[in-house]
């Protein structure tokens, strides 16, 4: 008998939602001592399925029919108090963002002991001792300090380890992990995945692992279930599903996962359009009186960029890659160094002199939701640039229609407001806005990181097409090595504001020089299997 057996589960959404059912007739089993992955894009119902097992569906969302058998007992029939007793003891769960999942104002120790003492009648001191043990088992150091610390004082990896320690504190039979590594940097992600896998093996427990990333699936799963629109499309052993996907959607998903190897030819050898040298940016914090602390976000960075080529800037969060981009486009004023655009230093130009040059460098932003003014129509948004430079509104709109077609949107959408579009469509609109000014340089700041994997592939393709058609020099900023490999001619790896190494993509991937780059590459999930 499997540990968990979900039979014909249907989860209904409140009447005000855009669809009636979030989970539709799902069947799924989790056996003992195995890792089952549920993989799917946003809105597939994978997360709510997990929450249904925990008995923690949000207010207004109900399990309408079906059964969830846990060790033979239907969890949906349990009283709330019985469910409470099971939670944490028999079934534990860890969440996507450990920062949000830990109470910010309660010390770590207390948060761990709280769970132990909710189920076992032991003293706080005894619970603390157990907590310390657990934390060291999770590979954490200075445990005593850690127990007194607050969540914000920990790193992302430490926080997720604490979450796992908490989840394991009562040796549950089932661990549900809901995208536990999505909010983490790639090297940390690899460590956490390894940890989960190790613990699962040691304790011989069952894990239900929810993810959107087939790379992770390949590394982790014994079995996999692919979900879409609340239904399970495909279900089987991981090797079978990856090797011989039965469903076309599964195939599309697998195909859309960037391969982590460069398909692009080496860059054309051309005179650099943009030359950055010694660029430095510092941030000061602190008030009128106190000595402010200074952090150097970008430290003496130099690079060149030519027409027709894409330079990838890769780094984890806090590496300074976004700050670099914002300095180059003068959203920030750099503290030192120069940015030569066709020989003119725009790094220190006065606002008035800079304005005519602005149109030559344009940007595509990360967040498809905040990058478009919610109160303007698409037409107004993308013709705003030309109008600044005095273009006739009628002519601008005519051109806007062409550009919209170019980025794959219907020109008739011009009178609509941004909220009527999906994330991928919004990124296309953002690109259209940049292209309207016929720029020479396009800076793309994590343009696909907020998108689902299938959409991601389409947008990456579009960017590459546009770059080629318009002979753009493109600066592509990303945290994802696989994405960088797919679209960049050259790659520059950054860490703590400094350049770690740079070179043609193929060389970097094939023969990384620095340990850091090697670690980054090693951390790419599913690199071997896909």
């Amino acid at each position, binding site marked *: 008998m499997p540990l968990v057996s979900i039979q014909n589960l249907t989860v209904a959404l409140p009447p005000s939602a855009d669809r009636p059912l979030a989970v539709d007739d799902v069947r799924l089993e989790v056996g003992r001592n195995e890792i089952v992955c549920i993989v799917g894009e946003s809105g597939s119902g994978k997360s709510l399925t997990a929450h249904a097992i925990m008995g923690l569906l949000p207010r207004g969302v109900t399990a309408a029919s079906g059964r969830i058998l846990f060790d033979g007992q239907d969890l949906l029939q349990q009283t709330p108090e019985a469910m409470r007793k099971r939670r944490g003891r028999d079934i534990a769960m860890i969440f996507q963002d450990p920062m949000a999942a830990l*109470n910010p104002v309660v010390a770590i120790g207390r948060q761990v002991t709280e769970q132990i003492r909710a189920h076992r009648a032991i003293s706080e001191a005894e619970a603390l001792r157990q907590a310390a043990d657990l934390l060291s088992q999770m590979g954490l150091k200075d445990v005593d300090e850690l127990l007194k610390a607050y969540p914000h004082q920990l790193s992302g990896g430490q926080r997720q380890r604490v979450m796992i320690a908490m989840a394991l504190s009562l040796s549950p039979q089932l661990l549900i992990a809901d995208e536990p590594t999505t909010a983490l940097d790639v090297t940390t992600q690899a460590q956490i995945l390894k940890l989960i896998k190790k613990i699962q093996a040691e304790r011989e427990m069952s894990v239900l692992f929810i993810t959107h990333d087939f790379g992770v699936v390949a590394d982790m799963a014994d079995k996999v279930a692919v979900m879409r629109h609340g239904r399970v499309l495909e279900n089987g052993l991981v090797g079978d599903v990856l090797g011989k996907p039965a469903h076309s959607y599964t195939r599309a998903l697998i195909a859309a996962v960037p391969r982590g190897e460069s398909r692009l030819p080496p860059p054309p050898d051309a005179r650099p359009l943009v030359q950055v040298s010694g660029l430095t940016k510092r941030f000061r914090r602190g008030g009128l009186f106190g000595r402010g602390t200074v952090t150097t976000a970008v430290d003496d960075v130099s690079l060149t960029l030519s027409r027709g080529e894409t330079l990838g800037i890769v780094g984890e969060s806090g590496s300074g890659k976004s700050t670099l981009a914002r300095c180059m486009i003068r959203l920030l004023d750099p503290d030192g160094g120069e940015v030569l655009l066709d020989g003119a230093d725009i790094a220190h130009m006065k606002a008035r002199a800079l304005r005519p040059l602005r149109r030559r460098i344009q940007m595509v932003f990360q967040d498809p939701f905040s990058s478009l003014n919610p109160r303007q129509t698409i037409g107004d948004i993308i013709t705003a640039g030309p109008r600044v430079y005095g273009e006739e509104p009628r002519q601008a709109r005519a051109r806007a229609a062409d550009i919209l077609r170019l980025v794959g949107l219907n020109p008739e959408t011009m009178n609509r407001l941004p909220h009527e579009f999906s994330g991928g469509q919004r990124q296309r609109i953002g690109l259209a806005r940049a292209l309207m000014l016929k720029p020479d340089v396009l800076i793309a700041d994590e343009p696909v990181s907020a998108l689902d994997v299938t959409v991601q592939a389409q947008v990456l393709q579009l960017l590459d097409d546009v770059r080629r058609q318009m002979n753009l020099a493109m600066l592509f900023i990303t945290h994802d090595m696989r994405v960088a490999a797919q679209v960049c001619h050259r790659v520059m790896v950054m860490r703590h504001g400094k350049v770690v190494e740079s070179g043609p993509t193929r060389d970097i991937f094939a023969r990384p020089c620095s340990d850091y780059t090697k670690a980054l590459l090693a951390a790419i999930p599913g690199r071997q299997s896909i």
Partner: protein
Amino acid sequence: MKPRYIAMRLVKTVLVAIAVVLLSFFLIRLAPGDAATVMAGQAGYADEAYMKSLRVEYGLDQPLPVQLWKYMDTVAHGDLGTSYVLRRPVLSLILERLPNTLLLDAFALVVAAAGGIWLGSIAARRPGSVLDSANTILSMLFYSVPQFWLGMMMMLLFAVWLGWLPPFGIETMGADYTGLARMADVAVHILLPGTTLALYFMASYARLTRTAMIEVADQDFVKTARAKGISERQVARRHILRNALIPLITFAGLQASILVGGNVLVENVFSWPGVGTLAYEAVTSRDNPLLLGIFIVTAILVSLFNLVTDIAYSIADPRVELGR
């Protein structure tokens, strides 16, 4: 870092006080008439010699910059000058009244916060329920009623019609109570003005608590807490309320700053011998040293309250570091 930061804040308090003096010195002097005309008018009889002697005594015959310089000089020596009309040191006049105002404030603050948090958390438990709506409407009502009028109505109801409470004043005249009896006497007197003040702020506490609790209840760590299998009561207390109360610290600090200047209207309606009535007298008699003194003392107290609020905030929320 912390003692240094606190020292810096105290220095800033002094600077704020100086700025307050400068700004209000000129502001106050814009108003027509001076203390001499007031006193001449009050006496029912006046002549030039009398008024001139008053003006010379007050230094009102000097040019404005000289007056300002002299005033700043006295203030710099830790003296707030002498009241024109009451002819006593301003500082002692204010210190005489300040405890009464602080007492009323403390009462109003505690009642408002306790009542408001209680009401707000009840409402947040079932958003959209009848209880919640009733709560919202009641809070709004107290927020919308003119304080002076509410005070009059309370006096009418509880002191005149029901006869439960003394109508006004801070203590029983000539009773010469001591110890506990005196405290009880003052407690009975504080109920009406204190509650009048508290109801207004209680509405804000209730609304803030309700919103904050609903917002916190949506956060991931509350889900975590439930996933741990701890009881709903503990979830509500340790995780939801504990986090929801943090923004209330700011509001309590704000309330304290608003109240410390004294509430002219409520103190007037209930003859509460606080700073508000003193300020009212100072305005109506152009007693500029007194008014300036009240402004300075208020400014310093408000700055201190802000500091205390910040310290309390940094204790309640470990993410917040003092001076950041």
